[in-house]
C-alpha cells in the first residue's frame, strides 16, 4: 500500500438520481461521458439552463471516460490548441473547489521524450511555441530528465536513447471516475436528468431543424440536441445524413499490480508508443497506440500490447518484474488533423463535439465550458471557434499530429 492509498477520500452518500426520461427538454445531450456531463454542468452554471437531459446508452461515464489514462497537459503546438487546452488546464486547477468534490488532480508534471535529432528539434520548437502562449514548458537534457524521473533509462546504449524531453510542470493526472461523479453530482443538484440505459437510435429533423431524439426508452422532444458521443459520433451523425471526417479506432491501456511509489511524474514517448504514470493507489497505468484498423469492439489486438510493453521495458527496466493486472480498450474518434471538431452543424440546433481521438480527457472542463456557450448562444466560444467542421473545406486545419497522435 502506498501512503497515498490511505488518502483516497470517501464518497458522499448520495451522488445522483437515476432519472427517467421526461417527454421534452430544452437541451438533450447525447452521451454521458465526461464531456456530456461537463457541458450539462456549465449550461446550468454559466447560462442558467437546467431543463436538460444527458442520455447515456450504457452506464454513466462507462465509455472512454472510464478507460483513459487520465493525462492532462496543454503543451500543444498551435495557438488554437493552446486556447482550448490551456483554458481547460486552468479550469482543472480549481475544479475540485468548484465541484466541491475530490478529483485528485495531481500536477506531477509530464515529460515528452525525444529519441532522435529531429524529435529534439520538434520538441524545442514546441517548447518555444508554448512559452510564447504563456504555457509552462521547458526543454530538459537527459541528465535533467533523470532528475525528474530517476527510473527512466537514460543510457545512450539503447535502441531509442533518450536525447532529452519537453517538460510541463503543471501537467498531471486526475481520478477520472471521481471527475465524472463530481460533475454528475452537481448536475443532479441543478435538477438535470442523467438517464442511463437510454440509447439514441434516431434524430428527428423537421424543416432543417432538430426537434428531438428517438431512444430505446421512447421519443424525447428537444429544443436543442448536443452530441457528446466520442467514438460513436459517426453513427449518430449518419442518422441525419451528416458525413464526418472521423475514423473510429480501438485504443488500449493496461494497469500493473500495486507498487510502492516509484514513478513520480508522467512519461510519454510518441516514438516508441507508450505513456506511463503511477495511479494514486499504486498501479502503473500505461497506454498504447491505436489499432490501425477501424473498430467499435472496445477491444484491440494483442500485438499492440506486446509492443507497448516492449517499449515500456526499454524505457523503464525496473518494470521487468511487475505483473500486468488487466487490459481494456476504448473507441476513439480520430480526425485528419488530430484536432477535435466542436461547434455547429448544417442542421439547426444540432451541435457537434467529437474528434478528440486519443486525447480528450484533458479537455473535459474546457470543452464543457466552450460547448455549453455554443449551445446556449448558438455561437462558438472563442476557444472552440477554430475547431469548426468546415475547416476541412476551407483548409484551415489545426495540424496537431506532432503534439497529439498517437500518444496524447
Amino acid at each position: 500500500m502506498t501512503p497515498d492509498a490511505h488518502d483516497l477520500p470517501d464518497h458522499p452518500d448520495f451522488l445522483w438520481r437515476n432519472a427517467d426520461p421526461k417527454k421534452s427538454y430544452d437541451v438533450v445531450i447525447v452521451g454521458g461521458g465526461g464531456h456530456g456531463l461537463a457541458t450539462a454542468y456549465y449550461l446550468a452554471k454559466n447560462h442558467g439552463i437546467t431543463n436538460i437531459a444527458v442520455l447515456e446508452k450504457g452506464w454513466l461515464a462507462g465509455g472512454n471516460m472510464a478507460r483513459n489514462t487520465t493525462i492532462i497537459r496543454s503543451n500543444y503546438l498551435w495557438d488554437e490548441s493552446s486556447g482550448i487546452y490551456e483554458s481547460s488546464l486552468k479550469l482543472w486547477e480549481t475544479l475540485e473547489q468548484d465541484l466541491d468534490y475530490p478529483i485528485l488532480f495531481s500536477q506531477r508534471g509530464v515529460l515528452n521524450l525525444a529519441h532522435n535529432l529531429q524529435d529534439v528539434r520538434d520538441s524545442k520548437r514546441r517548447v518555444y511555441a508554448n512559452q510564447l502562449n504563456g504555457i509552462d514548458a521547458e526543454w530538459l537534457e537527459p541528465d535533467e530528465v533523470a532528475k525528474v524521473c530517476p527510473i527512466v533509462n537514460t543510457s545512450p546504449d539503447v535502441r531509442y536513447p533518450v536525447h532529452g524531453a519537453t517538460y510541463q510542470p503543471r501537467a498531471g493526472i486526475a481520478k477520472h471516475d471521481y471527475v465524472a461523479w463530481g460533475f454528475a453530482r452537481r448536475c443532479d443538484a441543478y435538477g438535470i436528468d442523467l438517464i442511463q440505459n437510454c440509447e439514441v437510435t434516431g434524430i428527428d429533423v423537421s424543416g432543417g431543424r432538430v426537434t428531438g431524439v428517438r431512444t430505446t426508452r421512447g421519443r424525447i422532444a428537444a429544443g436543442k440536441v448536443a452530441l457528446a458521443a466520442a467514438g460513436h459520433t459517426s453513427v449518430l451523425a449518419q442518422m441525419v445524413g451528416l458525413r464526418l471526417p472521423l475514423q473510429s479506432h480501438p485504443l488500449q491501456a493496461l494497469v500493473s499490480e500495486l507498487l510502492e511509489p516509484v514513478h513520480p511524474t508522467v512519461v510519454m514517448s510518441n516514438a516508441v508508443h507508450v505513456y506511463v504514470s503511477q495511479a494514486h493507489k499504486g498501479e502503473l497505468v500505461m497506454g498504447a497506440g491505436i489499432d490501425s484498423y477501424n473498430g467499435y469492439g472496445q477491444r484491440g489486438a494483442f500485438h499492440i500490447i506486446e509492443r507497448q510493453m516492449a517499449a515500456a521495458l526499454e524505457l523503464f527496466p525496473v518494470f521487468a518484474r511487475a505483473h500486468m493486472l488487466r487490459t481494456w480498450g476504448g473507441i476513439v474518434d480520430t480526425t485528419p488533423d488530430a484536432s477535435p471538431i466542436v461547434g455547429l452543424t448544417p442542421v439547426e440546433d444540432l451541435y457537434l463535439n467529437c474528434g478528440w481521438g486519443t486525447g480528450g480527457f484533458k479537455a473535459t472542463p474546457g470543452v464543457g465550458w466552450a460547448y455549453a456557450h455554443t449551445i446556449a448562444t448558438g455561437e462558438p466560444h472563442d476557444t472552440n471557434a477554430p475547431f469548426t467542421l468546415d475547416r476541412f473545406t476551407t483548409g484551415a486545419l489545426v495540424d496537431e499530429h506532432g503534439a497529439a497522435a498517437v500518444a496524447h
Partner: protein
Amino acid sequence: MQLIPCPWCGPREETEFHYGGQAHVEHPADPHALDDEQWAQYVFFRDNPKGPFAERWAHTAGCRRWFNAVRDTVSYEFLTVYPVGPPNPLGTGTRERQEATA
C-alpha cells in the same frame, strides 16, 4: 492476434498486414470540375460504419499485394476478401454517393 485470409497466400497472422482504410475511394475523374466541398470529401471524409466495412489491406510481410476485404467493425471478423477491381459487394461508399448526387 487474428488470422487474416490473404486471397493469394491464405490465412496469415494479423501482424503481417498493413491497413489501408476505406476501399473503392476513386480519384476524381475530372479533378478540375470539383469544388472545395467535393475536394474535401475526396481528401478528408471517409465512411466510418459500425458493422460491415469495405476496406483495403496489404500483405506487406508476405506477397506484398493489396486486396480488398469486407470486415465487421464490431466483431472484427473478415466476412469476405477479394482482389482490387471488382465492385464493392456492399454497394456503399464514396463512388456511389458521388454518382447519386451528380
